């Protein structure tokens, strides 16, 4: 209980310092006043944090950040915004995002793209958790661009793959395919990452099929086989060969058999399951899709 009351005291003290305004300004150094206030706000925020009052803690950090800004110590302001976002995250996503964006603004001004990319990714993850895939995609795209600018290819790819994942869920298969092919092509040259390519190829091909484009899938698969010779002998490739044939023959049983066989060795994740379900719907026996 003590924490709460103490925090409020600090808040009041900080507010008072700011209100003191002009009077202090005349006598004391202008910036130190803001520094002190910010320090008080920070203390209050920490105390709120201890008593798990996340919203209040966030608000206090935010105020601290504003004070730092006024006191023109931008670096501290950005750190405070990040801390504020950390607290807001627990309940108030919108404010958390606003704080992160403020912090990113500062970091990009400073040219610290690595850290802004990290925070941008955090924003995207928040949107993702909220289920706002459009915003998440946009944020991941920015994060990916920042990472790319810093030459952290792996992180950039991670963001791109997320975009591909959501795009496919939003039935924007074209975008997904583009990303998977791009990532796969970039990963091929690297001894470490080339083993992940089969997964990207599989996903890209599934996207073609989900878009009911059998010819596209077949051509893509051929292309992938040419790109990576060892892909030919993978189980992924066999699965694709099998289900492309099944789609061509409009044969649901063959399709389910192929999938079940694959699943028995490497279990399918939820994304693949949902995409495969969509593909299965395109080869419905009763309606016999012809379009």
């Amino acid at each position, binding site marked *: 209980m003590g924490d709460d009351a103490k925090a409020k005291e600090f808040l009041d003290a900080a507010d008072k310092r700011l209100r003191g305004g002009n009077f202090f300004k005349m006598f004391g150094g202008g910036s130190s006043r803001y520094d002190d206030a910010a320090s008080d706000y920070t203390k209050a925020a920490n105390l709120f944090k201890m008593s798990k009052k996340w919203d209040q803690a966030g608000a206090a950090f935010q105020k601290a950040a504003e004070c730092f800004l006024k006191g023109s110590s931008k670096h501290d302001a950005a750190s405070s915004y990040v801390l504020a976002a950390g607290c807001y995250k627990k309940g108030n996503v919108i404010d958390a995002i606003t704080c992160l964006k403020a912090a990113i603004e500062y970091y990009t001004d400073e040219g610290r793209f690595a850290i802004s990319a990290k925070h941008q990714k955090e924003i995207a993850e928040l949107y993702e958790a909220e289920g706002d895939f459009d915003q998440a995609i946009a944020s991941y795209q920015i994060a990916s661009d920042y990472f790319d600018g810093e030459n952290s290819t792996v992180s950039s790819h991670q963001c791109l793959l997320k975009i591909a994942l959501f795009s496919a869920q939003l039935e924007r298969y074209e975008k997904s395919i583009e990303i998977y092919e791009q990532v796969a092509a970039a990963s091929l040259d690297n001894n470490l990452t080339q083993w992940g390519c089969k997964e990207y190829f599989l996903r890209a091909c599934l996207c*073609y099929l989900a878009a009911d*484009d059998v010819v*596209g899938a077949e051509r893509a698969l051929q292309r992938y086989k040419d790109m990576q010779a060892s892909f030919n002998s993978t189980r992924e490739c066999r699965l694709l060969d099998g289900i492309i044939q099944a789609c061509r023959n409009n*044969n649901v049983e063959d399709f389910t058999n192929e999938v079940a066989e694959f699943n028995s060795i490497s279990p399918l994740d939820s994304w693949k399951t949902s995409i495969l379900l969509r593909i299965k719907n395109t080869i419905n026996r009763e309606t*016999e899709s*012809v379009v």
Partner: protein
Amino acid sequence: MSYPPPVGDSIKLKVQASNDPEEAFTNRAYLPISSFSFLFPNVQSNLYTTNTNYIKIRVGANEYILSASPNKNMKPDSIALSKALRGWMYVSNNEEVYVEFYDPNPNICGSMKVSIDYLTKGKQGPKQDSQEIIGKIIDNFNSQYFTFGQLFYIKNSNSTFELRVEAVETNEVPTKDKGWAIISPATKIILQKMPGSLIDIETNGPLVVNQIFTSDWDFENMGIGGLDAEFRDIFRRAFSSRIFPPAIVKKLGVNHVKGMLLYGPPGTGKTLIARQIGKMLNGREPKVVSGPSILNKYVGQSEENIRMLFRDAEIEQKAKGDDSGLHIIIFDELDAICKSRGSRQGDSGVGDSVVNQLLAMIDGVESLNNILVIGMTNRKDMIDEALLRPGRLEVHVEISLPDEHGREQIFKIHTAKMRDQNALDKDVNLANYAHTTRNYSGAEIEGVVKSAASYAFSRQVDTKNIKNVEIKPEDIKVCDQDFKRAITEVTPSFGSTDNQFESYAENGIINYGPVFDKLLQSGNAFVEQVKKSNRTPMMSVLLSGRPGCGKSSLAATLAKSSEFPFTRIISPNDLLGYNESAKASKITKVFEDSYKSPMSCVVVDEIERLIEYVPIGPRFSNLILQTLAVLFKRTPPKGRKLLVIATTSNPDILKDMDIMDCFATVLSVPSISTAKEFQTVCFELGFTQKEASEAASFFTSPITIKQIIMIVEMARQEEGNFIDNFKMCLEDFNIRNF
């Protein structure tokens, strides 16, 4: 890869899926109205849905001609193609294609061949009316362009069908756009099933002969000597119906022959026929399994092996139905697995279920129509009879011992290489050998050739110094003498057994007078009758007489002089120590074997010994008696002739046993009953003329030849005057006998 954009008024459009299923069934490309009016500025809206607005689509280097229609709700710069069209053009969604106006060239289609299947492959449904489908093609696609390989959809009675153009033929040779033709109501549409399709439809295409035989196949090159007739039989029964298309055979309601049994003595070419059948067939290799290899130590595994043999056929039958190819399964030594059920004693019946499995596979509830099972055996009598009925192994072809013509062919086959290499001497006369090698089987003839070659080889080898071999290949010549020696060396298993006969007439036959002459004559008459007459294929003669009167010798001499290819003696000597049923089956075996030869003579020596008759009791073996009674009367198979000569020294018993009726004639072999005969016999036994007439004066009562010989030999052992000794011995003998 990128191609330069074509020149002219073409527009670049992005491919997308059809807007709705109805569009897909029209086989037209759909364009947004802006693009459509750009390509067809003069087409009025009432002509939007006709098939006469042609466009040319370029995908990469390929060009396609389609009819086009506008659709108001499409995105600009897009073109909607159905799944069939995209599959045919091999173009994926969002791919860019170039589209231009196409000025039609009137290539009117005379006939178009189309194959059909359900869109959902492997689907089965009610029978489809082909006329209705053809009508729909004409109605829906009138004045559209078609070309080889094009895919399109049609809806009929709630099912969607995928059709593929197999061929288009134009009435006139087109000036441009070869291979493309416009469908008109006059076009003849030929409908056929897609390979592997299960669609039930009456196709109207030309009937195709099933190509089950390889094209360069003919009887001559097969290397099956002397089996032409059998092979023609096999062909007619098992293969001729399969040459016709399934539709025709179905119309006649004929089921194909599913099984065939080749039987006959060993070495006559059954396996060879099976091997050749495999060679003459197109494509699928027949599965050749020897019976015993099916068996497995685990219970149930043998049945599983049988099922495995039929699995391929089953899968193809399910997939293709009547169009399935022919699966041939050849069982060598079928008797190993298909013994009559319940015939084995001390058996748990495990083997019986193999038979059951085979029965079920060939003609069970879920019977296959695409199999031909060929069983081969030399024990047809042991095969379970359920397997032999029509519907299962219904065609029984006997592969018997080759005739003279066949033997010559076989000789030719086996000496073909020698002749090519010029290793046959000029005096070699194959026709002659074919004549002498009666009852030789194919394998035995091969043995003769091998043996003859071995003589030729051995001439090159100095046996005293085996290391000193000078090989002069051009000197290896197989000559007439080699063949003759080889023929005496290799004896046929179904030939005559000369040694045995010689032991029966060790001292030859003594013609002691007119009585004997008559006997010999009538014996020979029977032999001639069997040889010449077609009405009496079976002759049985009984020789009766006192023991030692020369019945057996006479029988053996008759048999030997008859020159029948197959001669056998059944004598109690050879059956010593066997039990009753073993004896019976041995006797039966000899008769069964005789049926395999065109002409045979069986001598049954001392019937009363064979049936184990003893006067005290009296006792005898009824089993053997009945066996003999049946065998003596049984007529051999068509074309086979048999002479049975039986001997007995106790005809009264035989009469009581009711076996006399089995014989056509009874010849009684008398003892020596006159002094004149006695004199002749003595003379033949080495007496001088004087001694013989003196000896004849001692003759008092009938005596058998054997007894005379014994007395003569006894007298020769004694010292002193031979004639006195002879007289003494004879008197002694008479006293002992009476």
